[in-house]
């Protein structure tokens, strides 16, 4: 699974990092040339490639020319600076190397925050998260995330520390028939006293990239180590004392939009 995550990250990040072209020419011989548009001189198109190469392409050889507008010229580009911002995000989390089987979860959040000169940002979020797909192991997370941007330009690499409180909506010890089974072969169901839905704090050191986007929409991809404590106790503690102390330790990958 971790290799899939890495490949996914590279596939997403590399095009943004390497993207510099603003013109694309298709020649009559089938060849395609990309580069920086430098102008027309003596019926030749001038295309810059890197710092030292300038290609002179006769106008008659050009079959098709596509001008890629500069990102700065897009309407709404980089509008989320020094302003109240909103966000929507989804997250996938997973253990790695759990003894019997890895456990995965999915979640989503709505955020509100503020950006200071693409230097710092602060987000307050609330949403829904599941920590065990297919099982009623669900939470209502509320969190705060201060962020420090480490780079400038269109790609803002950031680091942050998200602190939250996760209120249990349901858990496998709450239900009479559903049990969390880290030992998958030992899934036994019998009448159980129900637990409270439980709750716990969380801390997520996170790093990622915010890509300043077009039309006032920025994209955020981040990776974090999600540490979440969870405690749930039996309702009938006088008769059947039962308490669960769980520490979720998950890799968490997020994708979100800022607008």
């Amino acid at each position: 699974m971790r290799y899939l995550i890495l490949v996914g990250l590279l596939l997403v990040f590399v095009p943004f990092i390497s993207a510099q072209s603003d013109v694309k020419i298709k020649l009559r011989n089938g060849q395609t040339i990309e580069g920086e548009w430098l102008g027309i001189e003596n019926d030749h198109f001038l295309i810059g490639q890197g710092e030292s190469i300038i290609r002179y392409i006769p106008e008659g050889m050009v079959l098709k020319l596509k001008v890629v507008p500069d990102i700065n010229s897009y309407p709404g580009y980089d509008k989320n600076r020094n302003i109240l911002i909103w966000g929507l995000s989804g997250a996938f989390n997973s253990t790695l190397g759990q003894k019997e089987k890895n456990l995965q979860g999915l979640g989503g959040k709505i955020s509100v925050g503020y950006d200071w000169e693409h230097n710092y940002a602060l987000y307050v979020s609330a949403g829904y998260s599941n920590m065990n797909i297919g099982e009623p192991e669900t939470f209502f997370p509320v969190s705060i995330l201060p962020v420090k941007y480490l780079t400038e330009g269109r790609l803002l690499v950031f680091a942050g520390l998200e602190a939250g409180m996760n209120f249990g909506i349901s858990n496998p010890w709450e239900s009479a028939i559903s049990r969390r089974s880290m030992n998958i072969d030992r899934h036994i169901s019998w009448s159980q006293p129900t637990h409270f839905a439980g709750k716990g704090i969380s801390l997520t050191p996170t790093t990622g990239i915010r890509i300043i986007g077009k039309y006032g929409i920025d994209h955020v991809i981040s990776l974090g180590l999600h540490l979440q404590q969870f405690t749930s106790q039996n309702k009938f503690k006088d008769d059947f004392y039962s308490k669960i102390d769980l520490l979720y330790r998950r890799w968490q990958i997020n994708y979100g939009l800022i607008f």
Partner: protein
Amino acid sequence: MKAIFYLSVTILGLFTMHSCVKDTCVHTKKYLHYEPVFITQEEFDAPAEYTLARPMENTGTIYAYGSYIFVNEFQRGIHIIDNHNPQSPNVKGFIEIPGNTHFTVKSNMLYANKLEDLVVLDITDVDQPLQVNRISDVFQLHRAQSSDQGILAYYESTDEAIEIDCNDQRYNSLIFSFNDRLFFDFEAFTPSANLQFAAVNNAKAVVESGNSPSTIGVGGSMARFTTFGEYLYVLSDHSLETIDITTPDQPVKHASTNVAFTAETIYPFEGHLYIGTTNGMHIYNVSHSGTPEFVSTTAHIQSCDPVISDGEYAYVTLRGGTECGGFTNQLEAYDIQNPFTPTRVQIFPMDNPHGLTKVGDYLYICEGPGGWKKVKSNLPGQFTLEQTNSSHSAYDVLVTPQFTLLFVGSKGIFQYSMDGVNNPQLISQVEFVLP
């Protein structure tokens, strides 16, 4: 370049830290832990002894006789409660009978097991119960086990909270060994919720009879001992022992009958014995010679199933899970007007049914931790739920000779007035001291 640097650091982190990204889970849970308690041969042979009242902790069989309530302290003996004033029952004393789990009362004689032996106590004077007889090797369910330390009389159960990692192989196990001791899942082996309740249910007989309350005995619906006519019937796992009690203080073994499946409860009515087993209901005829004559068996899915009857219909509660197996929880009614061919006529869904009784047209059904329900029997039409009471747990129920409804829960005995049958009112409770 800066962006690529930070990304590289992050990806490197994935490789170096992946081994510690695992959930850790600890379940701290109360388990029952049993320690064997041994007695000497002299103590085993000694007659039952009447002592001062003691707190009720781990109760089993309950039986109402005249104005007294007898409550089994599991494997220890029998509490006596003075119920002359149902609004204020008073715990009078305790009969020490090591290894006792079941008993019944008839004609001022209390018949109880002492491990596999049957002891007979004269309770004419309740303040001075006197053991008058003892016959050996009657109750096959709890046989004495001897060792170098003596005779195993009972297990001292204590509860202990221990921590188990959710990844541990013991996690989710009902029974496991830890530090050379045996632990039982507290939830699955609730002391009061198991098969410890016994006695007979003659609620309908009480309601319909004009007998003086002082001579009538009534018990719950999860019995292993019962009497009918001049015979005492003792139900072990797979055998039904018949004891002749024509002379009440001189019981004599009369017959032994094999019973199919694992038998759990016995209920007498109008010449028939209704035996609840894990896989069905047996009907035996005992009206001829006292010796049980097989009449019929009605099979059902595996579950715990106390059974009662009103002569026309038999009512069976099926409880799934725990030690009973199966997953069905429901009330079933069988038409037994022809006891040779019982036919199921109605089903009513329940949550966790245990003991039950019937008063007039109403069934009172214990729902374990969920309390009790009052269900109107409209047979052959459908059952209708009339009342749900979840203010206390309830595992067995009986109607006392004083015409009060007596529930046994995990925390005590709860007595309800039946003056208004449609609306039983709680009038008293005797609380247990939980260990």
